[in-house]
């Protein structure tokens, strides 16, 4: 089986200089191979910070969300409304989110120079220019590797999706850091004990497998065998923790607050996972690829997004999780300021917006500025690389550091870019 090298040697570690000073360190208990690797315990911190990405698939319109331009030729029919931050306005389609903007900041100056869905998704989630000669780990994989607490037995990188692309790649970090998908919000596949198999029989079976594995690993251990072992061990752990993924365990009141529709349920599930310490959770919301009837569809989609997202931000704050959880709402790109002849907006990577908050990043701020009709960035142009650095630094990972894998140094983030310092101040 072809595989990226993982857990192969002591080189497969996060270098010391990639860690920010003063952070705790410990073994990465979730991977048997890694935990056995000398020196790794010193290199990987016992992280307590988390990342929540809400990915609006298809490319949400910045003009109908974070950077409204009412009254201009490009602005569309929606008005701008005030938010909880004096002087900051967002689209009237987001009245609930407007009440949470003092906990978030808007980056209005994304210039990613791309209008392709697949490339945009890869770039925003990997922080690297694509296509590239190399497969880079996704944000979720990097967060899982650097921020999974010692002994944590749940997956460190979970994607909740009704639609949209699947989990991001772990690339050279190894498959144990690849995303685990909760398709349609259901528990990960193959985590239920088959009918007819008793718990005792399963434990005996696992013990036998473990003995065989240990014997084999003593002579012919490889990254592939470690990954194989890891997947079995993780599945066994999940058998006993399936209710973590069961959103029906939440209260009726919370179901009402988040809404019974898919995205509301997925946001409630995200809260449940973050409360249990999952380092990286991504929730997809689909779809915003509105080449036709952009305004009608944004009423529909953002109408679904607004309340659950605002409720989630509020809950994370009230439960004390926001200070350690980096929240980012992103898309693969924005949409054209020009309105086409079908009242649609097309793909646009030149001047668009995302939102970020929590984990100590500056809140209530606005980074960058677009011109009057939203067709260009006038101030502080940034791209996926800067966003990637910023998210990692916010959760205590020195994004300027490197992973050592199979004798090679791999910069954690694009070395040509850096964080958006204003957000980290």
């Amino acid at each position, binding site marked *: 089986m072809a595989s990226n090298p993982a857990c192969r040697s002591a080189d497969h570690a996060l270098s010391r200089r990639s860690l920010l000073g003063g952070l705790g360190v410990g073994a990465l208990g979730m991977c048997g191979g890694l935990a056995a690797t000398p020196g790794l315990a010193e290199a990987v911190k016992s992280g307590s910070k988390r990342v929540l990405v809400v990915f609006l698939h*298809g490319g949400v319109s910045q003009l109908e969300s974070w950077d409204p331009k*009412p*009254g*201009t*030729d490009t*602005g569309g*029919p*929606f*008005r701008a409304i005030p938010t909880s931050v004096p002087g900051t306005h967002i689209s009237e389609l987001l009245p609930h989110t407007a009440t949470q903007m003092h906990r978030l900041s808007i980056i209005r100056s994304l210039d990613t120079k791309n209008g392709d869905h697949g490339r945009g998704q890869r770039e925003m989630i990997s922080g690297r220019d694509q296509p590239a000669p190399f497969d880079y780990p996704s944000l979720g994989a990097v967060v899982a590797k650097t921020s999974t607490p010692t002994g944590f037995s749940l997956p460190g990188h979970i994607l909740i999706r*009704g*639609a949209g692309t699947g989990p991001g790649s772990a690339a050279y970090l190894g498959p144990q850091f690849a995303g685990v998908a909760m398709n349609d919000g259901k528990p990960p596949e193959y985590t239920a004990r088959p009918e007819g198999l008793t718990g005792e029989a399963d434990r005996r079976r696992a013990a036998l497998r473990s003995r065989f594995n240990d014997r084999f690993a003593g002579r012919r251990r490889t990254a592939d065998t470690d990954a194989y072992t890891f997947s079995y061990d993780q599945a066994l752990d999940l058998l006993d923790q399936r209710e973590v993924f069961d959103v029906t365990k939440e209260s009726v009141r919370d179901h009402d607050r988040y809404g019974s529709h*898919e995205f509301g349920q997925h946001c409630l599930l995200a809260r449940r996972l973050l409360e249990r310490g999952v380092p990286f959770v991504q929730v997809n919301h*689909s*779809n915003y*690829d*509105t*080449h*036709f*009837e952009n305004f009608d*569809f944004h*009423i*529909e*989609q953002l109408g679904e997004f607004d309340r659950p997202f605002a409720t989630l931000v509020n809950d994370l704050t009230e439960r004390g999780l926001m200070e350690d959880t980096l929240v980012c709402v992103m898309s693969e790109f924005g949409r054209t300021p020009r*309105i086409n*002849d*079908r*009242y*649609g907006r097309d793909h646009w990577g030149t001047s668009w917006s995302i939102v970020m908050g929590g984990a100590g990043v500056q809140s209530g701020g606005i980074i960058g500025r677009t011109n009057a009709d939203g067709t260009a960035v006038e101030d502080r142009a940034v791209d996926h690389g800067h966003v990637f650095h910023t998210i990692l630094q916010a959760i205590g990972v020195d994004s300027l550091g490197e992973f050592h894998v199979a004798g090679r140094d791999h910069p954690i983030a694009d070395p040509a870019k850096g964080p958006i310092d204003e957000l980290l101040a």
Partner: protein
Amino acid sequence: MAGPCLPCGTRPLGAIYFSAENTPPQRLVPGADGAEATVSPLEGGHDSWVKSIAVLPDGRGVVTAGYDGRLVWFDDAGKTPQMVRAIEAHDGWVRSVAASPDGRLLASCGNDRLVRLWDAADGRELAVLSGHESHVYEVAWRPDGSAVVSCDLKGVVKEWDPSAGVLRRDIATADALWKYDPTFRADIGGARSIGFNTAGSQLALGGITKVTNAFAGIGKPVIVLVDWEQPALPDKADQAADAAASQDASPEAKAAEATGVRQLLGKGAGDGVCWGVAWHPEGFWIGQAGGGGGGWLRFFRPDATEDFHAMKLPANGRGMALSPDGTGVAVAMADGFLRVYGLHG
């Protein structure tokens, strides 16, 4: 105009009313004997786009409906139209406003899922009609003033009694006009245009059908034609029995017989939406389509399902108004032009 034009209305004397995105609604009065037309703005009252215009009869003014949730009255008797009043009419977009045939009442509908009735003279709210479960896209008066009909995003059509302010019946579910696209996870559809024939015996609902890609607008423009004296909505058992009893008929014919609902599709029509529909006094329907297949005017006889004539437009149309005498049709187009076409036998 800057940007696409939106729907428009006409007066017997020839004035045409239209709007275009951020520009205030406009009144165009053709010049006599080849003189240049006069265009006057209807200034004030809205702070978003105007979606619909109702022209009151006998020079009693014009009422505009906006995406800001407002209805705005204008006195247009003079050289420069003057705003009379603006009211907060709906929570969210007002999608359509229509004047009763005698001009005394207005009906409006919007994203708050409501139909509202208003006194056209002073803007008093007379009734709030609830029952739709999705955004209400279009509203119209039956020509004899006896009924108001409305159609929502999901193709649900309701008849309201304007005197009593109550639901009279569910006319039909024009389900050809609605689809939930599972790929994009969104609803697409609704009546995008509406009209009665002169006798009030047929109701036409324009929209999009056979959608294969909601977010690219890949689907066919269609007019759903509903017989006013529609049989009571059949349940599924009745439909099955009817189908078994008339096995020789086509599925479409069976459905039309059972429900009083037919679809008018243009021959070889490209993708798009039917943004305008009107009954011509000489006895045929006109549909105005726009979308990926370009802009078209298509003409249908009331007993046929395909057009007997079609005319390609230079741009996508977004709204249409037929002059009361049937001699001209104005089409508001996405390239910023309002074009007026003569209709001659």
